């Protein structure tokens, strides 16, 4: 199955070049050059992943990200010229799954995309964490009868934690197992996404019962057993 990737960047040359790299790695590509058309193209083409530049004419990548997240959990990888804290955190909080800092190389870019498109393991079965039930086949999370919509990344994060409820996961372990980073990366990715996940699955995000913080170590699922 060929994945379709939406590349949003206002720089023509870079857009074309990224397209060439992705095409040579077997992806199908669609393009948008500004923030307004990005959402339109997304609706029309329904891509499997969005590669989104933050600095865009029309509306910023952060706005686009927020708009897409309002109706879709499709993976979004931001491209940013600034590695600065504010931009990155703003993008992650708007719902981006991961980010790549320019200038990046092709291998790195493809690795990030591949990690986001990788399905959950074959052996993944139904899981229960607290009052929630997770179905990896349908990416569905239910609290009783109510369905909770999660993005694939959020589902993977929750699933990873719930699969081993006795284990404390450090941020580095989660970066490796959820985001697919082999080397040290930005632990803010974990922090921001745990917050987003909690805001969806916890009854009181200030006082979490499902995604617990283990001070000085990381996170673990559930509160009863440990």
């Amino acid at each position, binding site marked *: 199955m060929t994945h379709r990737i939406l590349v949003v960047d206002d*720089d023509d040359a870079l857009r074309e070049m*990224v397209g060439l790299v992705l095409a040579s790695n077997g992806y199908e590509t669609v393009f948008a050059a500004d923030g307004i058309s990005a959402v339109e193209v997304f609706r029309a083409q329904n891509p499997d992943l969005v590669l989104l530049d933050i600095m865009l004419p029309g509306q910023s990548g952060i706005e686009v990200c927020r708009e897409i997240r309002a109706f879709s959990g499709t993976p979004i990888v931001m491209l940013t010229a600034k590695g600065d804290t504010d931009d990155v955190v703003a993008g992650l909080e708007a719902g981006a799954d991961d980010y790549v800092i320019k200038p990046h190389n092709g291998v790195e870019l493809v690795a990030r995309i591949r990690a986001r498109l990788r399905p959950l393991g074959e052996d993944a079965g139904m899981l229960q964490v607290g009052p929630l039930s997770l179905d990896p086949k349908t990416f569905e999370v239910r609290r009783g009868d109510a369905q909770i919509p999660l993005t694939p990344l959020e589902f993977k994060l929750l699933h990873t934690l719930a699969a081993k409820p006795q284990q404390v996961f450090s941020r580095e372990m989660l970066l490796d197992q959820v985001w697919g980073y082999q080397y040290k990366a930005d632990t803010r990715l974990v922090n921001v996404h745990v917050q987003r996940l909690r805001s969806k699955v916890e009854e009181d995000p200030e006082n979490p019962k499902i995604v617990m913080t283990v001070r000085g170590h990381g996170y673990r699922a559930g509160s009863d057993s440990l």
Partner: protein
Amino acid sequence: MIRFFRRSLTARTVALTVLLSSLAVILIGGFLSYSLANSFYQDRLSQVLSETERAVGSVQNTVAAASLNDETALQTLLNSVVPSLEISGGTGSRQVALLRSPDQGQLQLFQSPISQNLELSSIPESLREAVRQNADSLTYTPVQLTVDGVLVPGITVGAPLSIPVAGEFELYLVFNLAAEEQALILVQNALAFGGIALIVMIALLSYFVTRSLVGPVERAAAAAQLISEGNLDQRLAERGEDVMALLSKSFNKMAASLQQQIQQLDSLSRMQRRFVSDVSHELRTPLTTIKLAGEVIFGNRSKLDPALARSAELLQDQIDRFEKLLGDLLEISRYDAGAVVAEWEQHDLNAVVGAAIASIEPLAKSKNCEIFVELPSTPVRAELDAKRIERLLRNLLSNAIEHGEEKPIIVEVGQNSQAVAVCVTDQGVGMTRAQLERVFDRFWRADPARQRSVGGTGLGLAIAREDSALHRGWLQVWSKPKRGTSFRLTLPKSRDAVIANSPLPLPPRSMEA
């Protein structure tokens, strides 16, 4: 108190003025008081003498006119002399004594009549002797009298008196100077009061005059202080057209031009920093395209003929170098803009050093360079931004490898109660004193002619220094030509601690021999 005087010009001036004017007032008052007392006494004395003279004359006349032979009548006459003289005095009270001179054989029965309240102590024996010897004139002496139990000054005047039949007598008049003394005390009190009032007025005057002169100077000093603390809007009030107004005007002018220049420089450097940052960001997008394109070409170089393939390799290397340079430029512009925020976390410095060495290992191997590490056996915990410190150490290590002449590099880690330290030492070419001074300068290279093999950006040590300053740490260097170079990084254990000394010596022990 002494500090207060040293600090306050006003207090000093007033104190000095008061001291000097007090001295003057005391001198003048003393002189006035003395000469007044003297003139009072002299006036009274001459009056006293002339009264006595008249009294003596009148007694002699009385006695002569009486021409008595009867002793009893004579005694009665003599007795009447004293009261008549007591009341005939024009001024003040006086007492009279008519004493018979001693050593006269005849007529011992004559008594010596004296005034009622007269104490004989007011007619000293020395005076009586002087009177007997001075037959022609009046003799006097100042004495102390007791009036109503109070001592008052007085004068006793005496004259010899020869009375027929009765023999030699001495007439004494004792004058009381209490009124004169009263007058003198009154004048002295007035003088003292006047003097004190004068001194107080002078003190107030000098205070206000000094305030009016020192006040503007103090305000100017306070304003200058504020300006030097960065409060550039500070100005002085300009009132009047005197020299103080001139001072204020000049001061304000100076402050304004200073402020303008500082703001100009500030906006210039802000613009420049902004420019560097913008350029770096703007370069990133095309560089990304170039990089991706270069990779595609490089990845397919086996399909190219040798010259093109080599070109692809060169292109790839230089793109990497360009990227590194751009990254460093951006980092330093972030520091210049004050936009760097450290990500504080507790870390084991041993682990950070280990990570830095692991990442530099391939470079060290390619340069045939061994790295020896001396770590403490216990964890060296400190609050630090691990990413920045690891980068800093990587920079120090790659410098050591570049300049280390393939000799072993020594990395030491140490800690004391408040600080942790890493020392990176090479045994290579070393640097001269002049070179050492510039080692942290941007884009500076110890030897421009030297072949650049490792390919640093020239910003590594400048950034390292900023990273260290961000941690409130020290980055120090020791070097000696042909011996080697040693960089020592000292960091406080917690982010708000201050370092007093480093746990590791510089130069390191290995260099001391």
